[in-house]
């Protein structure tokens, strides 16, 4: 069969190899998982079940159920000072993944350049390529705590790009950016007329400070598409539900693709999401508190072991430096000798090399055992 060039341009995910190794072994404690170890709050699951019992199994409006869009509109206004109209500024998608894919196709013409800060979530660059655009890596560095800076953007040639991706709190580094740190990035976007895709799926998972959305900075709302969703904060990864917040013309453009490719996001998940927004704040707060304690535990243990690790303040990852610098070998030997799975930072792009992504979305007892094993391995 003749396959398209664009598929050929995208290499298979580097995570695959570690996945296969880990799956073959017994007694593996995995710190390589990019999703919560909790289940969705019971109230949200129950709402999904009830919707099924009522027989609500049909499509919803392309943009998502009106009630859900209204709940999202209230939620983001209250939590992040993001004001978006439920009518024409919100699109409910099948996870942020679909949303980012649709945004790329809505924004990118063949040959357009999309600046992709790295290390970052592995789907962005492939998404650009599937939209026939050219990804431009913008490396971030540990010296900057993996934050995006004006200088890095300039040095990597992002001034000539059309679109800039931002992802804070960041997967895989756990880096966050404050309002004053985001301002120079916003300035760069305004100066060079860049559209910003801001993936804020980990917004609720910050420790010791509140999340700021880049769209709230002056002159940014009209050039930004914000993504958030239910996977991380509400532990609903498998329910596949996210949303885009953007000015009406961007939402209309994305919806045109979404209505043909997806039609509507999963109905059962939308019912769960309404309940999640309405009644699950306490559960989210409790999960965040648990993550924070585990984060402290893991950071302390790495410090005691003498492994360098900057203080990640978001998501559920820390990103320690590997002694000797060869992350892939380290991760492979750690898995084979001690049965602890982590992901080498190289997988997440330039700037990730020499680091490990360690997820603390794992039960505290397993986490303690895994840290003991890493210490023994060293």
């Amino acid at each position, binding site marked *: 069969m003749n396959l398209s060039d664009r598929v050929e341009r995208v290499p298979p995910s580097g995570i695959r190899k570690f996945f296969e190794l880990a799956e073959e072994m017994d007694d*593996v404690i995995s710190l390589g998982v990019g999703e919560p170890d909790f289940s969705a709050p019971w109230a949200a699951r129950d709402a999904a079940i009830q919707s099924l019992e009522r027989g609500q199994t049909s499509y919803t409006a392309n943009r998502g159920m009106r009630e859900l869009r209204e709940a999202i509109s209230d939620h983001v206004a209250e939590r992040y000072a993001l004001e978006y109209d439920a009518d024409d500024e919100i699109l409910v998608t099948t996870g942020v993944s679909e949303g980012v894919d649709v945004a790329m196709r809505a924004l990118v013409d063949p040959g357009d350049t999309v600046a992709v800060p790295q290390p970052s979530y592995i789907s962005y660059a492939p998404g650009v390529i599937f939209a026939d655009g050219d990804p431009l890596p913008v490396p971030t560095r540990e010296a900057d705590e993996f934050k995006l800076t004006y200088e890095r953007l300039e040095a990597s040639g992002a001034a000539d790009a059309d679109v800039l991706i931002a992802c804070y709190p960041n997967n895989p580094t756990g880096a966050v950016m404050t309002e004053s740190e985001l301002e120079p990035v916003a300035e760069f976007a305004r100066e060079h007329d860049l559209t910003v895709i801001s993936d804020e799926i980990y917004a609720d998972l910050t420790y010791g400070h509140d999340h700021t959305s880049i769209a709230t900075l002056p002159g940014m709302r009209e050039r930004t598409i914000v993504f958030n969703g239910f996977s991380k904060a509400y532990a609903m990864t498998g329910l596949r539900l996210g949303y885009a917040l953007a000015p009406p013309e961007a939402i209309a453009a994305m919806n045109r693709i979404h209505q043909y490719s997806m039609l509507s996001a999963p109905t059962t998940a939308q019912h769960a999401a309404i309940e999640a927004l309405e009644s699950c704040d306490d559960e989210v707060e409790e999960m965040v508190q648990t993550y924070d304690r585990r984060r402290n*535990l893991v950071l302390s243990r790495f410090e005691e072991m003498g492994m360098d690790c900057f203080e990640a303040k978001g998501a559920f990852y820390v990103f320690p430096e590997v002694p000797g610098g060869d992350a892939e070998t380290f991760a492979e030997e750690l898995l084979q000798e001690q049965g602890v799975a982590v992901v080498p930072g190289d997988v997440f792009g330039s700037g990730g090399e020499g680091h490990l992504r360690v997820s603390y979305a794992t039960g505290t007892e397993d986490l303690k055992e895994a840290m003991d094993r890493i210490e023994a391995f060293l």
Partner: protein
Amino acid sequence: MTDKRELLDLLLENARYSTEDLARMTDLSEAEVVSTVETLEDEGIIRGYQAVVDWHRVKEEHIRAEVELNVTLDRETSYEDIAERLAKFPEVKTLQLVSGDYDFHLEVEGDSLQEVSNFISEKVARAPEITQTVTHYVMETYKDRGIEFEDDHGDDRLSISP
């Protein structure tokens, strides 16, 4: 959250967390953890540490009963007086004054049905101020003090995901 409250939360989650781990999970030093837990104990806020046991898995008989008690009070006898006497029995594991249809709620434990029913009829029901007892033998425990007893389904997530 105060240091005391934070440690209380963690110990409620798992009373066997080591001092080192408690310090790692909070912003406290090990010495601060030790002194704060001592204060919690001295002030009587922490009354003890016990295992949560699934008796079904212990190969011996173990009976638990929930008992509802009604009492009559008089000029000389208060709830506290009755509670004080009932609490002395080692068979009584929990004793609470509750609102609603009855006055006291008891959890009674023993090694056999015989032992528990004898205890209730001989020691509890016979006390002059006790007017009525209703005994519910526990047949199955699904969850105790926040811990579910069902078999762990394990972690069904992919071992590595992006």
